[in-house]
């Protein structure tokens, strides 16, 4: 589409792809790479305009600038980093347990037809009873402790993780296990070499969903249980009517999730399922 300076001279055959000519379009191309930011900018603008035009009472809505200064104060005092650390530690522990229990259980159910028939109704039943609905009971059993928070994260994650691991095993083509059996593989070997890696894309979907659900359950848990964490920050700010801290905390929740997804979950998928050609990004 470009590079036609020396047209006509047949002797000069191009030795490579046509060179790109710098135009104003190519100069602003880097902006396109940031197009994911546009909705955020728009939302921020709408928020600011609403606040500017409406001029609401400070117990209803505050300006973006006020939220920013509240966040800066929280960072200065070292509260934000401490709370983020606490929430992430709780999440990490819950995820370890949830994935450690959910994935093997899902594989087991996916591989065994009669076990699946026996367990599906009860799994669907508990899946519909949300983790938050368990909070009153959990508090009665474990009190306002870390155990309650872990339990609600694990419970909430368990179902998406388990169901997706189960589906992952079931969608592995029969031909792959048959072919592996003809190489002399026994049942366990087929599970290890075919079903486990074959279910991986689905397992990753489940883990991603599960961590997302677990993240929300964690915040709900921290609302009630307290003892630090981002959920506690947001809920506690309410008692003092600090709208700026509530909104600031919510922003941190969303941003933290984006970072988690980009820095941890996506690279794992890139290294496995994308490399194997099972998923296209």
């Amino acid at each position: 589409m470009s590079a036609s300076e020396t047209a006509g001279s047949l002797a000069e055959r191009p030795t490579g792809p046509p060179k790109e000519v710098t135009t104003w379009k190519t100069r602003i191309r880097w902006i396109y790479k940031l197009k994911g930011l546009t909705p955020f900018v728009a939302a921020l603008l709408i928020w600011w305009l609403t606040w500017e035009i409406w001029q609401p009472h400070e117990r209803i809505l505050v300006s973006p600038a006020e939220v920013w200064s509240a966040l800066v104060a929280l960072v200065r005092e070292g509260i934000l980093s401490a709370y983020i650390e606490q929430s992430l530690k709780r999440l990490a522990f819950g995820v370890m347990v949830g994935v450690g229990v959910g994935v093997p259980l899902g594989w087991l159910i996916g591989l065994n037809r009669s076990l699946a028939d026996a367990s599906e109704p009860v799994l669907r039943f508990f899946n519909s009873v949300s983790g938050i609905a368990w909070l009153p009971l959990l508090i009665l059993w474990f009190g306002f402790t870390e155990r309650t928070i872990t339990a609600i994260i694990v419970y909430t994650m368990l179902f998406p993780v388990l169901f997706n691991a189960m589906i992952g095993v079931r969608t592995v083509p029969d031909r792959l296990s048959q072919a592996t059996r003809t190489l002399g593989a026994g049942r366990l070997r087929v599970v290890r070499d075919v079903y486990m890696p074959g279910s991986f894309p689905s397992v990753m979907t489940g883990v991603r969903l599960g961590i997302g659900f677990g993240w929300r359950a964690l915040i709900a848990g921290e609302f009630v249980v307290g003892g630090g964490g981002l959920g506690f920050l947001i809920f506690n700010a309410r008692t003092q009517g600090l709208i700026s801290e509530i909104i600031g905390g919510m922003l941190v929740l969303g941003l933290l999730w984006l970072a988690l997804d980009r820095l941890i979950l996506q690279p794992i998928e890139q290294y496995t399922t994308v490399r194997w050609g099972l998923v296209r990004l």
Partner: protein
Amino acid sequence: MTDSNGGRAGAASAAPATITVDDLSHWFVSEQSGQTVHALDQVDLAIQPGEFVTVVGPSGCGKSTLLNILAGFIKPSYGTALVNGRPITKPGPDRGVVFQELAILPWRTVYRNISHGLEIQKVPKTERDERVAGLTQLVGLEGFENHYPHQLSGGMKQRVAVARTWASDPDIILMDEPFAAVDAMTRLTLQEELNRLTLATKKTVFFITHSVEEAVFLGDRVVAMSARPGRIKAEVPVPGDRRDRTWEVMSNNQDLQGCVEEVLGLVRDEAGEQEIAH
């Protein structure tokens, strides 16, 4: 010799055939319709060591069922299927299978796919490397050892499948339309290579195909099957030595062309009868 099928005594008489199928019948319940399908009816077949037998027949004639029985994926309803005089009970590395669809593992590189069977049989690493290197060269995959299957063309993927099967060095190779999904030019090359490879490694081959030309080109003998329930309608020996066969020879040789016509006639009759039956 143990006969777990509890049927007839093994047919290990004078010259033991590599594969012996004796009075084999099979019924199965179709998952779609829930109806009982009579797939195979009184099939008798003997394949001698080193023989290349090709099977043609209309769709649903039970040829894949027969392969599944020989591979050990399913148990026949009636009759016996023996390998080297022993009843088939389960899949094993003595019978390699190459499927039509892609059946190599997407998460393993070319190297790791080919060496998979050797890993399972606990062949030491150095010997494994040696054998895989030899095979990648034999099937023309040098330089692609670290590629993943999705980075390869259809023909190359089937080369990986063939190399993987050959790696365990089975005496018997079962092939279910292995070149059906490969483009026409590549298919011609793969067929010639398979001919050479099976001769050089002295394999006994059971090869299913839809293409009569392919059946005649590759086979020592062509087995034509009838429409459901599958019976063996005729066995046609292919004239000449398959050592000398290339596609060039094939297109200029009257005997071979005559053989193609004969088998085509058999298959055409079947297709006609099937139309009327429907």
